[in-house]
Every structure is written in C-alpha cells, then in structure tokens.
C-alpha cells in the first residue's frame, strides 16, 4: 500500500468579479511510497503548490481524493508536517516555544515538550538559539526552526513548499544537505515542491515534473544516485545527465507558460 495516494485530484478556483474560473490542476494521480523523497518540479503557476496544499488539507480539491495510509484527507492535521516558503514562525514565541507549538496543542507535558524541542533543534544545528525570537534569526535559521517545528510533531509525512526559495544560493545548498541528511537518517516520507532543477535532483528519490497551467504530471523520473549523497554528487556525469533531461522538460513548459501570459 502506498503511503500517500493522490487520486484524480483536480482544482478549479472560482472566478471573481465576472472573470472566468482558473483551472489550476488537471485531474492528477500520484502514488507516494513509504520513505520516498519526491520532488515536484515545475515552472511557476503550474499548480505544484496547489497540489501540495491539497495534500496538506489547506485547499479542498474540486474533485478526486487524497488518501494518507488509506484514510481520506479532509483537512489540515499534525500527521502532515509542513514548511512554507514564507517565514511562518510565530514571532511572539522563542525558537524553542515555536518548536513546542504542536506538542503543546497536543497537550504533551511541558518537560516532554522541551526535551523533544531541544533534540530537534540540535538536529537542525540551532543549539544555543533556543531563547532567540524569530526576528533575531537569519532566513536560513528561521527555516531550520520551521523544519524542526514540523519534525517535532513526528508527522507521517513532511510537505515542503519551496522552503528554501527565499534564501541565497549558498545557504540554500547547505539547507538541502541538512534536509537530505535528516531524510537519510530516518527516511520520513517527503514531498518537496521546487522550481530549482539542481535542488530537485539532489535530494529526490523521484522527480515529478509538472506541466504549465493547467497543471498535470508530465513525467516521473526515479533518481538513482547512491546514498549518502554529498554535495559532490552535483558534479558527476550521472547528475548532469538527469539535469540535461529535466532542463529540456522544464524549458518546454516554461516557454508554454510565458507565451500563455502574453
């Protein structure tokens, strides 16, 4: 049985003020196996974020259904941890209390909350920053905290919506290595949305390419690079071959998307 089944999910946003409704997602089906690291790659506006938000339960599909471990998803919940592109740490809470947030909502005793929070903060390399407020942290540190906050809930799946999109290139590469290291350690099922081809290949066990609006899955490419992967894999011929193929796939879609806008 798949960890996650996306079955004929489609999404149309209703038009506002007499404009035509927007078709964001064509009927889409996708099976995600346990321990998979799936990256969803596509040009902007291809509905990849919409698909992820439907899995998260933050959007309701116009048709179709999403099953997590065989149970239909009907709304957001702590079994699907999410990291957003925007910085969504609660600015009034310290780093530690941000990580405790989900545990507190679940009613875990405070001592246990703190133990879990400190473990995950150490895992993302933020030991010593527990009592900082988000505004005192760099963008990369904020997203690391957001990752720790999602992981602390021990979700069945991790959903990431271009979480490193706002970071500079160097920080972004370090974050990819950090996330990949965490995945290699406990193989939590991950769905990661990005428009960055290198990022998609480097971390994934499967890259799912989406077409320009309305979005649908164009191809599904298993990445057979060995684990553990270091950053050095990015300069290997195998990596370059994947990159060449995906660049072609994405380029066609981007050109389509650009000409549609005209």
């Amino acid at each position: 049985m798949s960890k996650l089944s996306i079955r004929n999910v489609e999404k149309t946003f209703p038009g506002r003020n007499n404009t035509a409704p927007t078709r964001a997602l064509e009927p889409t089906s996708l099976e995600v196996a346990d321990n998979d690291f799936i990256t969803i790659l596509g040009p902007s506006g291809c509905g990849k974020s919409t698909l992820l938000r439907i899995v998260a339960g933050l959007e309701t599909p116009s048709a179709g259904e999403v099953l997590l471990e065989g149970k239909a998803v009907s709304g957001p919940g702590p079994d699907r941890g999410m990291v957003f592109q925007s910085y969504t740490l609660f600015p009034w809470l310290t780093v530690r209390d941000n990580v405790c947030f989900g545990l507190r909502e679940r009613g875990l005793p405070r001592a246990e909350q703190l133990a879990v929070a400190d473990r995950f903060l150490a895992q993302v390399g933020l030991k010593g920053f527990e009592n900082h407020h988000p505004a005192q942290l760099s963008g990369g540190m904020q997203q690391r905290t957001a990752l720790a906050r999602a992981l602390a809930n021990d979700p069945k799946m991790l959903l990431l919506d271009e979480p490193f999109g706002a970071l500079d290139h160097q920080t972004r590469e370090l974050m990819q290595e950090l996330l990949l290291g965490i995945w290699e350690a406990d193989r939590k099922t991950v769905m990661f949305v990005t428009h960055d081809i290198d990022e998609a290949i480097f971390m994934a066990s499967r890259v799912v390419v989406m077409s320009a609006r309305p979005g649908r899955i164009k191809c599904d490419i298993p990445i057979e690079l060995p684990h553990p992967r270091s950053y050095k894999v990015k300069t290997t011929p195998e990596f370059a071959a994947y990159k060449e193929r995906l660049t072609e796939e994405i380029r066609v879609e981007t050109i389509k998307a650009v000409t549609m806008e005209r």
Partner: protein
Amino acid sequence: MSPLFTPLKPVAPALRTVLGISCFVLFFLGWGIATYGGFVKPLFLASPGDTLAAGIALFREFGFAEDIAVTVWRVFAGFVMAAALAVPLGILMGAFKPVEGFFEAFVSFARYLPASAFIPLLILWAGVGELQKILVIFIGSVFQLVIMVTVIVSGIRTDLVEAAYTLGAKRDGVVLRVLLPAAAPQIFEALRLVLGWAWTYVIVAELVGASRGIGHMIIDAQRFLDTGQMIFGIFVIGVIGLITDLLFRALNARLFPWAKGR
C-alpha cells in the same frame, strides 16, 4: 536638496529631540509675543505668565487636583468599560465572519453617532451623575474600538494560521494562541489611539451638568472671563494625554518586544 530632507531618511535621535523641543519653544515664543507685546487683549488671551499664575492659584485655592482626579477617573472608567466589551467582540468579529456579518453594519452605523449628541438623552436616562459622564466616553469609544480590533484581527497573516493548523491546532487554539497574540501589539496601539479620543469626550460631557472635573472648571472660568484658567485647564489635558501616551508606548515596548520595528 539638503541631505536632511531625503524622503523617509531618519534623523539622529539628538536632532529629533532638539526639533521637538524647538516647536514648543516657538509656540511659547509666539504666544509671549502676542500677549506681552500687546497685540492681543488680556481679556481674550492670557499671557504665559498669567496662565501659570492662574494654574498655581487653581491648585492652591480651588482644589484643582481633585478636578483632575475626577476627570481621570471618568475617562479611565468609561474607557475600561469600552475596552472590556470592544476587544473581545472585535476579536470574535475578526475571527468569525458570521459574527462580523451580524454586527458590522450596525457598528459602522453606530460609530458615526456623535457621542456628544447622546448627552441630553443620557442625562434623561442616567441623571447628571458619574454614570452619565462615563457612558458618554463609553459610547464614544466602544464602536470605534470594535471596528479597529476587527480590522486588526482580520488582517493577521493567513500563513501563520495555516502553519498552526498543520501543527495540529484546532479552532480554539488558532484563536487563542495565534490570532490573539499576533494581534495583541496592534490592539494595544488601537487602545492608545482611542484613549486619546476618550479625552475629548470627557470634556464635552463635563461642559454640561457637572459639578467637578476639568471641563467643569473651564466652564466656570468662562463665567469670570478668566482666560488664564481656561488655557491652563486645556494645557493640563494635553499634558495628561502626553503622559498616558508615553506610558502606553513604554508598556507596549515592554509587553511586546518581539513586535519592535514593525
């Protein structure tokens, strides 16, 4: 163009203080020239010296401190009553759109009703005692505050709310532990603004049918054409306003250090 007058460019704190004081100095200078220079008759405008003398006499001979205490108490009581109703209602209206739908039209209508126009009615209903004065302030503040709090809560970033849902928060958790703390600094700021308006209502209330209070003193002084006392009374209101403003700001900075510079 002078570099000092570059749009949005901050000035040094010391220069800022000097500028702020200069405005006061210029004001008193203009006042002094107009009165001591004999350009305005003392009957219409007392000189700064006469005003100060009138003020000292007010405290020494007419128990002005008690008037101030009575007025401060009225403002405080009316304002606390308004806040106690408006803040929870505004939070409910901001968070739950059916509640907003029910109240919004009525509150928008009610906030245009001038509080001073209620004075004759309130005298009929509540007599000329304390309750009537307090109710004027209550009516003048409560509807404004409800609308402001509603707008603040409605404007809380939805991605923070979505993050809370994906961490397992339920409805009450989102309202109490996301919307409320996120809105708190701005609600505090709204209270500061509305308190300033409450001061203008109390004086109006005291101009009619009061036996104590700053407004009553000003009306009394008018009977004797004592412009010194009138001006001193108005000044005291300004000073009290300035002090409460500074207290609110200091308290805001202390309670919500994380919101600094937003």
